[in-house]
């Protein structure tokens, strides 16, 4: 089932490639239908998922390169399930939302988007490190194209920077994977990249520290953790709307997912040791991202820096290494995807009409687009984590988890709660309030039914998760507990399996 889910978009992309030229609407519809079909499959995965188990489920394995120990293995647990759900929702939304803005090379665009979906699903579901790495890097290619081909005026610079920065950071992870493989071969007596097998390898503190550092660097750039964030504003600003949506909603989560997935499984002691450092960087990110966001004049850069701040919250929850923190972080990964994805779509609606991202070019838009104003308000409040919207429960759990470790972590982190209101309301006022000073008032036509339809699932989730987050939290609870168990159990008590006969 998971394999079908992962590769369905790719198969869809191949089908799209078969559509003859000059039929963009067929391409658009097929792309949307494929992503909707993937959503149906994802819903079936959610339906088949057993929330009471903390282990990996629906595992599928196949031999790939047996001689090297490289296998094809996919599976899902409560940690990846939420992100799979997020991917399933965001892609159709982003595709539908871009019908009005992407008018050139629609076919290539749709292929890139569907290929991207396969890559991110594979990243979240891989249980074999080589497979994981292939998907991880494969994500870069369609994304770089999305920025570089359909992006803004400075798109080439942004695309190359995005590609090189995140690629360079990942190369060390590949080295670490290979070292881990070599050490496993010694201890387990078999060549394997299987995550669950590698989790049984005992690493001494020094080696573990270095390997974790290599993984963490790759993840930290992706999140991005301050000060490794500078590729993000450029990528976001130049990317087309759907690219920004996917980048914010899904790609950044690859980094935070990496910490939660691999930290407890492979490097528990190193993760515990690094937690204070991660928390410190997270707090700097929260405050720094918010302060810099406030100073932006470009709407998209403003939201990009708000992501640095919001992802700081996610990292803080992870660094808390307790149930509230982990649960809050997992929930907030989904929430940030919804809220920030929606914020980029908000900018997209305005940009499609006026082709400017400068806050100063707007003003008084609310009077011209009252329905859009209401929508923007909802998204804004969700991003500011107002109770009743999705953001609140996540932030509350993260800060509570942080508080349980150190009152200072929470006291500094809570500054982000204040600052998010500062820059978000500031942006809203610049754009929506005041007298009608927008540069192209005549182009500011009310949001269309198609655009509204693209927002509808996000708005529904904003309220649904805000009012009743338990369906999500219940599904991740067992997996989080299992992950934390690995951190709490002293290293010497971890079961070391007998070495098997080498093949």
């Amino acid at each position, binding site marked *: 089932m998971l394999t079908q889910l992962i590769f369905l978009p790719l198969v869809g992309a191949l089908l799209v490639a078969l559509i003859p030229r000059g039929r963009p609407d067929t391409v658009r519809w097929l792309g949307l239908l494929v992503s909707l079909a993937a959503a149906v499959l994802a819903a079936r995965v959610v339906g088949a998922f057993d929330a009471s188990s903390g282990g990996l489920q629906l595992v599928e394995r196949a031999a790939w390169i047996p001689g090297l120990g490289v296998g094809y293995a996919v599976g899902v647990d409560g940690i990846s399930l939420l992100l799979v759900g997020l991917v399933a929702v965001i892609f159709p939304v982003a595709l539908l939302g871009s019908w009005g803005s992407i008018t050139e090379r629609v076919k290539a665009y749709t292929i890139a988007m569907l290929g991207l979906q396969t890559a991110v699903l594979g990243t979240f579901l891989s249980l074999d490190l080589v497979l994981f790495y292939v998907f991880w890097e494969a994500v870069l290619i369609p994304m*770089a194209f999305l920025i570089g081909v359909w992006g803004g005026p400075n798109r080439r610079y942004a695309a190359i920077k995005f590609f090189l920065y995140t690629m360079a950071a990942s190369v060390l992870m590949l080295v670490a994977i290979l070292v881990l493989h070599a050490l496993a071969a010694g201890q387990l007596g078999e060549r394997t990249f299987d995550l669950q097998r590698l989790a049984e390898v005992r690493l001494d503190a020094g080696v573990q520290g270095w390997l974790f550092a290599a993984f963490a660097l790759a993840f930290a750039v992706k999140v991005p953790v301050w*000060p490794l964030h500078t590729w993000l504003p450029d990528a976001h600003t130049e990317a087309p709307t759907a690219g920004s949506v996917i980048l914010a909603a899904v790609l950044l989560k690859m980094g935070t997912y990496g910490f939660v997935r691999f930290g407890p499984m492979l490097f528990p002691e190193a993760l515990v040791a690094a937690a204070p450092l991660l928390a410190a960087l997270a707090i700097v990110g929260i405050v720094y991202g918010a302060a810099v966001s406030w100073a932006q004049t470009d709407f998209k850069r403003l939201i990009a820096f708000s992501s640095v701040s919001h992802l700081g919250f996610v990292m803080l929850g992870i660094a808390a290494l307790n149930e*509230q923190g982990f649960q809050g972080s997992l929930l907030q990964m989904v929430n940030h995807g919804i809220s920030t994805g929606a914020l980029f779509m908000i900018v997209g609606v305005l940009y499609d009409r006026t082709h400017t991202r400068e806050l100063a070019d707007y003003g008084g838009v609310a009077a011209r687009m009252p329905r859009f104003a209401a929508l923007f308000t909802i998204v804004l409040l969700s991003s500011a984590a107002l109770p009743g919207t999705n953001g609140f429960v996540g932030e509350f759990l993260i800060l509570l988890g942080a508080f349980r470790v150190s009152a200072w972590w929470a006291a500094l982190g809570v500054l982000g709660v204040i600052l998010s209101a500062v820059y978000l309301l*500031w942006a809203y*006022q610049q754009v929506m309030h005041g007298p009608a000073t927008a540069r192209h008032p005549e182009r500011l036509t009310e949001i269309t039914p198609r655009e509204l339809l693209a927002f509808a699932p996000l708005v529904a989730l904003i309220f649904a998760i805000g009012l*009743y987050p338990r369906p999500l939290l219940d599904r991740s609870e067992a997996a989080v507990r299992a992950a934390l168990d690995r951190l709490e159990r002293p290293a010497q008590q971890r079961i070391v399996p007998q070495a098997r006969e080498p093949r």
Partner: protein
Amino acid sequence: MEGLAPAGVLLLLAWPLAGWLANGLLGRRLGRIGPGLIGSAAVAGSFATALGLLAAYRALGPEAGPIPVPLGAWFGAGALVVDASLLVDPLALTMALVVSGVGFLIHVYAIGYMAGDPHPARFFAYLNLFVFAMLLLVTAGNLLVLFVGWELVGVCSYLLIGFWFDRPAAATAGRKAFVTNRVGDAAFLLGLFLLFTSVGSLDILKVGEAASALPGGVRLAAALLLFAGATGKSAQIPLHVWLPDAMEGPTPVSALIHAATMVTAGVFLIARLGGLFLATPGAMAVVAVLGALTAFFAATVALRQHDLKRVLAYSTISQLGYMFVAMGAFAPAAGMFHLVTHAFFKALLFLAAGSVMHAMHDVIDVRRLGGLARPLRQTALGFVVGGLALAGVPPFAGFFSKDLILEHAFALGMATGNYLPYLLGLLTAFVTAVYITRAALLTFSGRPAEPGARPHEAPPVMLWPMALLAVLSVAGGGLGARAAGEPLLRFLEPALPHPDGALAGVHAPAGPLMVLSVAVAAAGVALGWTLHRGRRDPALGALGGVLEQRWYIDALYEAALLRPARALGRWLAGPVDLGAIDALVNGVGRGLARLGADVRRWQTGYARQYALGVLAGTVLILVFWMLR
């Protein structure tokens, strides 16, 4: 009752929620008058439900106690379980009656006041949403549910202050209100974390029971953090700055949210967590002193404001200070009594001020008013009744409640030696009488400053709510007057913890204190009359300038906090982010590029070639490691 409580309290909340949905979704299809009727009817439904709940609760007798209404688990993680629960007790019922009762009158008034506005549906949708949020706040059984209401009333406040968002001042004021409140809310959140980690629950009843057993330091920190939240919502020093600016909102909003109900949420919070606060004398001293300082400070500022609504806004800040004095003096029932009478007379004053704006085409600067007693006879009468109640002149309602607070403040002094709250409270009573006399004289007496205006009295739909509030501003004293048997205090008593220890046996000399406070109020009115008779408005010299500039606190915040913060943001965004961090990244990239001089021709700038190159390199490394 036990069985009725869940249905009743849900119905209480459902009315305004339905009104919000109806107005929000049907919007323009409701015409000009429909939204106001729907909005008012919804709040009337809540008021009727609250009355029914009150009757059912009283039927249970004096031992009824709090009735929790569990609605199931909201969310949880690990040891944290947050139950969505409500709570019916005398405190909740009192607040629900004030919110829905005064709220209903103000909704009706708003039908007339907003008659000319093109967006009545949006207005009444926000107003109904506010009533829902406020009712949720006061009936919450869990601190996090309370916090939901707490934040949601803040959002409604933001939306309604900025209702006329095309005015930059209104939009900015809304933002200022929200952000200032968020500062308090951040402290509130930390208080919740501390309570949860030490009590293990955020259930209000459990926290109240467990509070006295907590270590002193934890109790003090939790109480002060929650009080910091209260200073935001209830506009106390140092977070008071948003409320005067909030007057940019339509006047019914000022009356309902920024006078009668939302701003009292901080006072309510302390009463609600009486078990925590009353067990923490250190925190109570802070509450009493800060409340007294705020009361005095805001009253002095009200002396020299020219915008009538700003006079009333500072008056509200000042009166809220009194309520905190009562809380800090271990007399939550007295504070609640003043909360109720203040809701009556301050709503009345605001509605009268709104009637003036209505008549004078939105002129609200007292220097441009005057002589309105004749054309606006009923409005003037309403303002005077409200003013007398505010000034603490017997037999108006404010006299009884303010006097009771001063009595308890004096008792606090007798017990602890801390007479500061009492003395500041007494001084404030004097200043209050002066400033409200000034406001009344400048607005209504003498000759019009701009004779050309042709003011017209408000329509009955606006006058009737004022008339009813005027009656309540007189009769409301009976809720807590000794002669009337103190029905409200008796009703509230079982819901509020009693101070044990030092204050239990102390009784202030009620008679002499009452004589003194009446004398002070009379002297204040007399001084105000002498100073401002014939619409004279002496500037009070240098001191007057300080007062006019609000003791320069807003200017100080601007210069010491906001401007440095913005500058810091710009500095981080420019020199640090682009100039240092990003420049370093690009420098590394460029340096590497230069290193490979031979492969420079590969630098085609096409991402796909880079991708290919890096992938190929990766595969090479991979293969090398495999075959090693």
